[in-house]
C-alpha cells in the first residue's frame, strides 16, 4: 500500500511542479511585458498592442 500512495503522490507532485513552473514563467513574462511597455512609452506615447489573430 505504501508504494501505491507514493505513486499517487508522485503523480500529484509532478503536476504541481508543472503548475508552479508555469506560474513562474507567467510572472517572468508579465514582468518582461511591463518592461518593454515602459521602454516603448518612453519613446512613443501610444501603447502598441500585438495584432490579434
Amino acid at each position, binding site marked *: *500500500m505504501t*508504494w*501505491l*500512495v507514493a*505513486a*499517487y503522490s508522485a*503523480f*500529484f507532485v*509532478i*503536476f504541481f511542479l*508543472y*503548475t508552479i513552473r*508555469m*506560474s513562474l*514563467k*507567467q510572472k517572468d*513574462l*508579465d514582468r*518582461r*511585458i511591463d518592461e*518593454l*511597455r515602459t*521602454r*516603448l512609452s518612453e*519613446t*512613443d506615447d501610444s501603447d*502598441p498592442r*500585438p*495584432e490579434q*489573430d
Partner: protein
Amino acid sequence: MADRKLGFAMLAGMLATFYGAFIYAPTEASMGTVQRIFYIHMPAGVISYFAFMVVGFSSIMFLYNRKLKWDRLAYCSAEIGILFIATNISMGMLWAKPVWGIWWTWDARLTLQLLLALIFISYLMLGAYVTDPMKRASLQAAFGILGAADVPINYMAIRWWRTQHPSPVIAGGEGSGLDPDMQLVLFGAILSLLLLYTYLLRRRLAVERSSQQVEYFEQVVLSQ
C-alpha cells in the same frame, strides 16, 4: 477569477479521487490492493486521448483558416497530453511488475501507447527546429493530425488484438464491467483529471499568449 474557481474545483476533485481510490473503492478480489492504481492509470490514458484529439481538431482548424490561435491550442494541448500519457504508461508499468512479473512487454496496446507518446514528443520537438511561425504551424498541424489519427487505433487495440494487456472493463462487450462502487470512483477520477487538464490548458495558453506578446514588443523595440 475563473482560473481560481477552476483550480479549487480541480483540487477538490483530486482529493476526492485520492479518497475514492484508497478508501471508498472495494479491494479487487484477484489482484488485491495493486488494482487501485487503475483509478489513475486508466483516467490518465483517457485524458491523453482527449488531449491528442484536441490537437487533431485544432490542427484541422488551423489548416482550414490559418489562424495561429488554433496552433497555440494544439501545441499546449500536446504538451499536457504528453504529461498524461507519461503518467498512464508509468502507472501501467508499476501495476505490471507485481501482476505480470515484468515492467514492460511489447504487447499491441503498450507498443501503440509508446508510439503515440513518441509521435507527440516529436511534434513538440518539430516546433523547436522551424523558426518561421506559419511554416512551423503548418508542419506541426500535419503531424498533429497524424498523431490524432493514431488515437482510435490505440483505443481499439485491446479489442482487435487480444495480447497481454487486460481486456476492456468499460464498453468491452459481454462479460466486461465493473462493480458499481469501482465504476463511480473511475468516472469521478476521469472527471477530476478532465478538470486538471482544463486548468493546465488555460494556464499554459495564457503563458503562450504572453510569450507571443513579448516577441511582438521586442520586435517593435528593435525596429525603433
